[in-house]
C-alpha cells in the first residue's frame, strides 16, 4: 500500500506537475499573452516594496541557484572536484540559509504590505489568494528542512537529489523518497503544487525574465501591422 502511495507521490505526481507546468505555459502563451505580466503594484505603494521585493526576489534567485547545484550536481562530482563533504554542507547551509532568510523576510514584508495597503489589497486577485499561501508554505518548509539538515546531520544528496535526477532522466525511483524526513517531502509536494499553479498565476512573469535586454539595440523599430487599424468586425458569436 505504501509502495503504491509512494509511486503516486514520487513518480506519477512529478510528471503530472511537469505536464501541467509545460502545457499551462504553452496554453497561457498562446491564449493569454495579454495577461502575462508582473501585475506590479508599485504604483500604489513603493516604500515597503523597495525593501521587500528585492530582498525576496534576489533571495529567491540565490535559493534557486542553490537548488540547481544541490539537486543536479551529484555528490560524486563535488568530491571529485576536491570539495570535502563537510565543507560543502557548511557552505551550502550558510549561503542557502542566508538566501532563504532573505527570501522569507522579503516575502513577509511583501505579504504584510499586501495585507495592510488598501489599494494593494484590493488589487489582489483570486489566484493570488491561492498562490501566496502556497508560496509561503513552500518557502517556510524549505527553510525548516535546511535547518533540520544541520541539526540532525541529514544528507539529502544521498536521497532527494538522486530522486530528482531520476525524474529528469525519465527513470523515476520513488523508493529513494520513502525514508526522507517529513519536511523535505512536504517541501517537495508543496513545490509541485506551486509549479502546477505557476502558469495560471502571476508567477508566470518569471518565465519572461528580460535577459534579452542586455544585448538588443536600444531603439526598437517595427513596421505597421499588416492590417490597418480599421479592420473587419469579428463574427457575432465568436467568444474568443
Amino acid at each position, binding site marked *: 500500500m505504501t509502495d503504491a502511495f509512494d509511486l503516486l507521490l514520487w513518480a506519477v505526481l512529478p510528471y503530472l506537475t511537469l505536464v501541467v507546468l509545460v502545457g499551462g505555459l504553452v496554453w497561457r502563451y498562446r491564449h493569454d*499573452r*495579454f495577461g*502575462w*505580466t*508582473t*501585475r*506590479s*503594484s*508599485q*504604483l*500604489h*505603494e*513603493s516604500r515597503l*516594496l*523597495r525593501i521587500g*521585493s*528585492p530582498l*525576496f*526576489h*534576489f533571495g529567491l534567485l540565490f535559493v534557486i541557484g542553490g537548488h540547481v547545484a544541490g539537486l543536479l550536481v551529484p555528490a560524486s562530482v563535488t568530491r571529485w572536484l576536491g570539495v570535502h563533504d563537510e565543507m560543502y554542507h557548511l557552505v551550502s547551509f550558510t549561503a542557502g540559509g542566508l538566501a532563504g532568510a532573505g527570501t522569507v523576510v522579503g516575502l513577509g514584508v511583501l505579504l504584510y504590505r499586501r495585507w495592510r495597503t*488598501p*489599494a494593494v489589497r*484590493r*488589487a489582489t486577485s483570486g489566484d493570488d489568494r491561492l498562490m501566496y499561501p502556497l508560496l509561503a508554505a513552500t518557502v517556510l518548509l524549505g527553510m525548516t528542512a535546511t535547518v533540520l539538515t544541520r541539526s540532525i546531520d541529514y544528507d539529502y544528496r544521498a536521497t532527494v537529489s538522486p530522486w530528482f535526477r531520476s525524474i529528469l532522466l525519465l527513470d523515476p525511483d520513488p523508493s529513494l523518497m520513502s525514508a526522507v524526513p517529513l519536511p523535505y517531502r512536504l517541501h517537495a509536494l508543496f513545490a509541485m503544487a506551486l509549479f502546477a499553479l505557476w502558469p495560471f498565476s502571476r508567477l508566470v*512573469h518569471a518565465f*519572461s525574465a*528580460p*535577459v*534579452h*535586454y*542586455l544585448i*538588443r539595440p*536600444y*531603439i*526598437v*523599430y*517595427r*513596421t*505597421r501591422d499588416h492590417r*490597418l*487599424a*480599421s479592420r*473587419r*468586425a469579428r*463574427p457575432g*458569436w*465568436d*467568444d474568443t
Partner: protein
Amino acid sequence: MRVMAQLAMVMNLDKCIGCHTCSVTCKQTWTNRGGVEYAWFNNVETKPGQGYPRRYEDQSRWKGGWTVRNGRLRLAGGGRLRKLLNIFANPDLPELDDYYQPWTYDYRNLTEAPLSEDIPVARPLSAVTGAPAEVKWGPNWEDSLGGAPQHAPEDPVVQKLGRDVRFEYEQSFMFFLPRICEHCLNPSCVASCPSGAMYKRTEDGIVLVDQDRCRGWRMCVSGCPYKKVYFNHKTGKAEKCTFCYPRLEVGQPTVCAETCVGRLRYIGVMLYDADKVGAAAATEDEQRLYQAQLGVFLDPHDPAVAAAAEQSGIPHDWITAARRSPVYELIARYRVALPLHPEYRTMPMVWYVPPLSPVVDALSGTGFDGEEAGNLFGAIDALRIPLDYLAGLFTAGDPEPVRLALRRLGAMRAHMRSINLGEPTDQRGPGRVGMTAAEIESMYRLLAIAKYADRYVIPTAGIGRAHELEGIATRCSLDGDGGPGMVDGRTDLFTWRDDERPDGMFPTLRGGARP
C-alpha cells in the same frame, strides 16, 4: 542618408485658452477604463506650475531621458544592467500620489439616501479602493495659477531660473501648455523597455506599446522624461498616447487636434535623417540641442532628399505631404515652433509656438500699445522673466531662439494690423526679423486663419499601400465577409436551408461540443 518619415505636431500656445476639451475628448476615447483612471494621455497644465505628474520636469529626481557622458548617450536612469538590477523595485517610479489619487463621487447617495432634513450630498470616493477619499491634488490642480503663490515656486523651471518670480495675481504671467506624448526620434521609453514591447513605427514614427509583449516591468514610465507612459494598475501593462493612429491611418487628425476649440494644433509629416539622430542627441552643449535637432530634419523640397526618400521606401504621397507640411513650415521655415525640453535629449516631435501674450499683456498693462512693433520688441527684451521662463521650457535656457520666435510673432501682429487698418505697412518691419512681407503673410494665414486643410496634412496609410489595395479590389466581392462564397466563421442566411443547423449561429462550448 537614411530618410525616415515622422508624423509630428505643433501647438500654437498663443491660442490655447485652457478649456481642456482636448484632455476630455482624449480621455473619453482612450482612458475611460479601469486602471487608467489617473492617466491623461493629453493634459493641459498651467505654466508656471508643477505640472502633471507633480514636478515631472525635475530630472534629478525622476531620472528620465538621456544624459551625455564622455560624448556618449546614456539613459539617465542607468544602463541595461542597472535597469535589470532595479527591476524588482524601480527607484524612479512615480507613485499614484505624484499624479493624483483618482476619485469619483457617491452619486448613488443622491437618489437612495433616506428622507431627512438635509439635502443628500455625493461624497468623494477613491476610484482605486472605493473608500471615502479626501481630494488633495488633481490632474489640473493649479488651473489658471490657482494656488500659485504656494505651489508655483516648486516649478522646476522656475527653480532653474534662480530668480525671484512673482506669483501675486497682478504681477504674474501665465499660459497653458497642452501635452501629449512627444513621439520622440530618440525615445528613452523605448530604450528603457526590458521586454522590447515598446517600439517606434517605421512608417510614421508613432511610438506604441505592444500590449501582448509588455510584461509590466515599468521601466518605460520612469524612462520617459515627460512622464507620458502610464502604468495600468488593473491590467499590469504600460499604456500611452497612440497619436490616435487608427485615425491618422485613414487621414484624420488626432482626437485632441480635431476637437481643439482654439484650432491651435497642426499635424504634418517631417522627413529626417535617421543616421544623424544619435549624434545630434549627443550634442555636448544642451543649449545647442535645438539647432542639432533642426539639423536632423530634411528639406522635402530638395530633389536629392526626395530621391533618397523614395529609395528608403517612403510612399510618394508621403513625400508630397511633407512638402505641404504645416509642421515643417512652422519648425524649419519660420522657426517659430520650438521643442519642449530638448535637454532631455529624446528629440521630441511635438513642438510649440511660444506664447507672445504674456508679453503683450504685460505691455498693455503699463498703458502702452501692446500691438505696436517697436513697443513689442522693446518689451520682449525688457521682460526677462517670461522670456527666460520660455527659454527654460523650449531651448534649455538659451533665450535667442525664443526671442527670434517672439519677435517674428510680434512683427506679424504689427504687419497685419497695419493691413487691417488700411495703414501703410512698415516696409522694414519684416526685414528686421529676417522675413519678407510675403512670408509674414503666409505665416499669418497658417497661424491665424488656420484652415482645417492647412492645419492637417496627413497622408493615409492606405494610399501608400494602393498597390495591395488594388489587389483586394480585383477579388470576387462574394468572397468577402458575409458573402455566399465565404467559407468559415459567419453564418450566411441566404444559403441556409431549414433542415440544417448552421455553425456560427449558436455559441459553441469550449472544446467544440455543441450545447
